[in-house]
């Protein structure tokens, strides 16, 4: 059979070159994104280094959840290296302050199919109204205490706010989530929760392994009783250059004195917690 092919008759045209190049490029893509990626098929919680603000990625199996989106349209750009270029299937906004939702609005605009959980109260800013517009499109829901979400191997329980939470301080009703991995490790995500709100829910909590320091380490969010109750061994501060003085030195000292390891996103970049094998 092979003898019948006359190789001298085969002409290599520029189309052949392009097809060959495209095949090579696709092969490179598959190897690079799936085979050589350290995050492929891993259960992750990533505290993104977005400057002063919050953006947290939770990924397990095929489920990807993005909690808040940082202060800029591009804040969430770096999530895709952890998700094999897949977009989140669930978005949550903890509250409507600009340093939490600016990136979320941009991410939502570029997504097609997703679940969106929005805060119960909105302020009048441009980005907050844009988020509300997305909510008006019909994909909506607000999370309240005791609601439970499942993201692959993670079980997420809503600790705060209560269904009747109302306050002029938008931080007061911001979402607090307890994330527990199937193998037992747990993370407390406190958003910008102030100490007056912490007083109301801390007694529901038990020991956790990691805590996201509330409100970029603001002194008004330091509530020692919460820390004594959850006694974390590691704390993450999501902070960047700012004029508010975040994180407050008193807060950093308090965590250090308690023997808690503190990781700051402005110092170490993205903080990646990998769970399971």
């Amino acid at each position, binding site marked *: 059979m092979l003898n019948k092919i006359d190789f001298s008759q085969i002409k290599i045209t520029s189309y052949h070159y*392009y097809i060959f*190049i*495209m095949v090579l*490029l*696709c092969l*490179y*893509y*598959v190897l*690079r*994104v799936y085979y050589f990626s350290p995050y492929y098929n891993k259960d992750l919680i990533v505290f993104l280094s977005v*400057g002063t603000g919050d953006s947290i990625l939770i990924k397990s199996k095929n489920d990807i959840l993005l909690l808040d989106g940082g*202060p*800029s*349209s*591009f*804040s*969430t*750009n770096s999530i*895709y290296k952890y*998700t094999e*270029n*897949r*977009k989140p299937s669930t978005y949550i906004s903890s509250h409507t302050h*600009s*340093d939490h939702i*600016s*990136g979320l*609005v*941009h991410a939502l*605009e*570029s*997504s*097609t199919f997703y679940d969106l959980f929005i805060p119960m109260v909105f302020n009048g*800013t*441009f*980005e907050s*109204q*844009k988020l*509300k*517009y997305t909510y*008006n499109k019909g994909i909506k829901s607000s999370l309240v205490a005791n609601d439970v979400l499942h993201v692959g191997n993670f079980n997420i329980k809503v600790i705060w706010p209560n269904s009747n939470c109302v306050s002029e301080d938008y931080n007061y009703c911001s979402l607090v989530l307890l994330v527990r991995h199937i193998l037992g490790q747990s993370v407390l995500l406190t958003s910008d929760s102030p100490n007056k709100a912490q007083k109301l829910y801390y007694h529901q909590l038990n020991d956790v392994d990691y805590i996201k320091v509330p409100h970029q380490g603001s002194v008004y969010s330091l509530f020692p009783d919460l820390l004594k109750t959850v006694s974390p061994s590691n704390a993450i501060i999501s902070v960047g250059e700012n004029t508010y003085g975040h994180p407050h030195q008193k807060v950093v000292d308090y965590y250090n004195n308690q023997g808690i390891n503190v990781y700051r996103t402005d110092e170490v970049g993205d903080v990646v917690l990998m769970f399971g094998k």
Partner: protein
Amino acid sequence: MSMIKIPNILKVYSVLIILVSICVLRILFYKTPPAKQKDFTTNIVITNPIYIKDSQKVIDTAAYKVVSYDLPYCLNKSCSKNLELGDIVKVEGDLYYTTIYANKITYLKDSALKPLYRIKDILIKTSNQMLTEPYSSLLNGMLFGTEPVVSDSYKDLLIRAGVIHVIVVSGYNISILFTIMAGLFSRYSIRVKYFLGLILVIGYSIVVGFEPPVLRALIMGILAGYGTSYGRVRNPLYIFISTLLLILIYSPSLLYSLSFQLTVCATLGILLLHNKFSILFNKFLYFKIMPNVLKNDLISSICAQLFVIPLIAYYFKKVSLVGFILNPLILWLIPLIMFIGFILIVYYLIGLNYLLPFTVILIKAPLLLFNDVVTFFATIPFGQVEITFSIKDLIVYYFLAFVFVLIVYKKVKGVNAQ
């Protein structure tokens, strides 16, 4: 009385002399606008999508960058409409060079070219939905010249690697578009091809905004295309000089624009040296066996960099050395990305998105390679060096450069077949 026949070259020189005289007069009588001004008011057309950076809302246009802490946004029909591409807005605030720190932004009316901006908006949104970041930003930058919605550190990385010109709109995009147009309409006569191409490229230039490099490439393309389609001999250098003079007559302030200075230097370098360098380099065996695409990119890159580097050193005090190697290595990917990207956006737009997971890899793969190669080169130590140039150094450099060009012209004889 017999007619005196004026030689063509004299005609060219007289046109150039007239243009130069008008240009000099225009520059002499031009009053430069203030660089800093409180309570500055102007009307602008929104040509790029609004984005948020550190909680500040940014409107980027060819003339100004408008930064504001809040923008109007309406949810119901009772208040005025939301801002979108193609709207003319009145901006009031403080001017600082080309950035306006706006206190108030008010919608005035739709611009006459709103339908074009609508198409741009739809295409950008489709690209954003199709791809993840930073790939969608890279593709949008290459295709529509939109300001990339990426972090400053990623932008720095592109600058360090010397490839930022690829994702901000430049003459390169226009030249690729001209080439693609010529390929698509190759069956038609040269004049039909020229006029069809012209309409599309002018439409494209309006949509991306008349940045100096776009204006330069567009006018050069128009003049060169006109010359070719009417059988006139074209000398690119004359076309280039006429283009510059026309642009400066229209807007003398561009003389002080870095973007304009860069495009002038890069184009001049390519026009003066590309041909001779091709002949020179083809004497080397390794170069002979190199594919033409890479060969052309390498020579263009070297020619442009030779003329651009001192300007970059003068303004930024840093020069990317890796850019010399990186540009020829990856520039061949750009037409491929632009072509496949555009086809896939249209493909997605007409509702074939259920096939997308299988097809989108065709665009993600070259973008990933571009991103990876750029990241690798940008992180090479000593890839970017600090060089400081004064005005005096600039004059000496360009004087030596022109002496070098003369030597090259004297030593290297012949015309490259390409």
